[in-house]
């Protein structure tokens, strides 16, 4: 069988994360509120 000499590309030049990951991040950002009181930091996640 003929050997293929064409080079395989290691990775797609344009790679992007899954839609779910990005959506999760956007929702996480919307849900997260951080309150600073003096030296203390409170993280709240609204569900």
């Amino acid at each position, binding site marked *: 069988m003929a050997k293929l000499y064409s080079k*395989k590309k290691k990775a797609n030049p344009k790679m992007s994360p899954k839609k779910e990951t990005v959506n999760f*991040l*956007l929702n996480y*950002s919307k849900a997260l*509120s951080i309150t600073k009181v003096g030296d203390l930091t409170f993280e709240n996640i609204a569900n």
Partner: protein
Amino acid sequence: MANVVLPDAVLVKNYVGGDENALATLIERHQSKIYGFIYSKVMDRDVTEDIFQDTFIKVIKTLKTKNYNEEGKFLPWVMRISHNLIVDYFRKTKKMPFNRDTEEFSVFSLMTDNSPNIESKIITEQVEVDLQRLISELPDDQREVLVMRIYDDLSFKEIADLTGVSINTALGRMRYALMNLRKVIEKNQIILTN
């Protein structure tokens, strides 16, 4: 469309000010660079996805706590966070990135055996035999100096003492010996390289 022309620094400011869409634009703008960067290190889609997510969770937290103060350098900052997370990942799994043997890349290009192979050993032997034959053709006084200097590793002072001539004479004999050797090599087209 207006978001496209907004610089990162403005988007970061808007996001810190409460504009959630600014984050979407920032992610949209830089996702492929950051994702590609992580993937190029870990070479695993799922791990890349995890590290990408963790990177932005850190970004979100830092921005929301208003600790970010590197305006104008958003992408390098995010890249540094992802780089640190990649280091953490390798440290945790104690796994070093490894190279698979592929069509265009052989692992043996990383591992080399520096000891001479059988072919180069034979060539070296032949070269040495040829050279010895050439040396034996030299006039006695020149051969004597050359052998003492090259094979016996004597200094010219020692050679001069042993042969009963001055250092300059010994040096001259060595010079003529080398010249004669070169002449014979050139004349007979002898290849003395390994």
